[in-house]
């Protein structure tokens, strides 16, 4: 991984719903709404001065999140920035509202084989598709925050470092040869 990321970009998804759909709307429902919101998010990310960027997508002002919209806003956004032809290097964290959103988020992530770092009110969690090894490594990194390159091998072993690098490839953690590994939540607080 190259340069350190830019400072956290917080995106109020509820406000975007109002801007992109209608001022009084707070529900994230229907595919066209989801598509419009995702495109608005991409514009904001594109405006950040340098890559990679770390964005916190904040759904806390969204009342209803249906599956079609979750697929458009969350899954398709992640898929786009994981592809080889992605517009730029970008990492995402999500803040959502408990079980109201959890179900939709988990379902769409699982359907695409994706995972995401999400705070549902009780701290950051890894939601979606991940192996047991990935979850263990992610939790250890989340607990520690940052782990330098020397400590990485000592703590995780060679195989574990590969898992951490895999998490970075999936955009679920930060990894740099010289910097070591960093949890996205830590990166969000102290880029």
């Amino acid at each position, binding site marked *: 991984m190259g340069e350190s990321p830019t400072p956290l970009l917080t995106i109020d998804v509820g406000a975007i719903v109002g801007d992109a759909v209608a001022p009084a*709307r707070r529900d994230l*429902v229907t595919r066209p*709404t989801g598509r419009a919101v995702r495109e608005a998010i991409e514009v904001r990310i594109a405006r950040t001065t340098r890559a990679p960027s770390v964005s916190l997508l904040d759904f806390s002002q969204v009342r209803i*999140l249906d599956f079609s919209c979750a697929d458009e806003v969350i899954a398709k956004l992640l898929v786009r920035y994981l592809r080889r032809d992605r517009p730029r290097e970008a990492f995402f964290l999500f803040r959502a509202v408990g079980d*109201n959103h959890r179900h939709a988020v988990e379902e769409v992530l699982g*359907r695409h084989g994706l995972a995401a770092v999400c705070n549902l009110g009780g701290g950051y969690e890894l939601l979606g598709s991940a192996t047991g090894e990935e979850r263990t490594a992610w939790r250890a990194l989340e607990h520690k925050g940052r782990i330098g390159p020397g400590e990485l091998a000592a703590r995780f072993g060679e195989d574990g470092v590969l898992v951490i690098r895999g998490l970075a490839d999936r955009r679920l953690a930060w990894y740099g040869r010289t910097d070591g590994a960093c949890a996205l939540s830590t990166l969000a607080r102290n880029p």
Partner: protein
Amino acid sequence: MRVIEIPRSLDYRNVEHIYEQAAGDDSSPVLFDARRLRWIDPNGMLLLLAAGQVAARSGTAPRISLPARQEVTGYLERMGFHHAAAGIFRSGAGTRRRSRSASDVLLEITPVTTNSDVHDVVDRVQARAGAILSTALRYPRSAVVQFSVILSEVCQNIVEHAEAPGWVAAQAYNWQKRLGRHVAVIAVSDLGCGFRASLEAEHAARFGDRWGDATALEAAFLLGLTRFADTGRGQGIQQIRKQVGRWQGILSIRSGTVRIADTPDWSSRPPLEEGLTHFPGSQINIILPERTG
């Protein structure tokens, strides 16, 4: 004049009788005689509207004789039936103004044509569903979110797949005699292309000779197939099935000549009914029972 007799009671259990009469090829003018009607649920109301539209395709707007009982016409009024029927039936039904936001109605008959309509449905139902779901059905307060998502997904089915407008309506009832519990009934209906035509171009070839109404409906209902190649598509019905199943409810979809259903223990309806009278579009019925225990 062809007269279609509406029985005293018209709900999801006996709608086939109307489908059989309404789908006939006879192009003579149609009268829907609902004078004896005493009880009707959202499925019955949307069926009358759909059957009226089918009858109108012959070139002559059908007529409807409204129920003789005032409490029934009053209920139809509160459910927005007269307003919805105004553009379909020749006289009578459409002469009254729609009452606004009747307090005892979960969701009046609402046309669904665009995504904006779906937003309106979700907006409207949130204001009323909370109290009904928590007091009548004894669901947790948060159930209004899942309920809204069900309505959103089921309405999007019309916008995304039917290629024609439709309606949605919902109401809560006390089924004391029938089930000993309260229920919420959601009905969704359109006269669009139906599941078979919607899926045909993308999926018919792989099913070969087996392709038909039943295969198409099973492909959508059980496998989550849609006409879109996108991996994220097809979740709507699957997620509705899961949530309705968690609440031990009924979910049935009628399309073409087939009805497919997820049925709980308290229902005796079969999971698949084939060989029904062909009727255009799709009709979805969801029944959510009061929580027990």
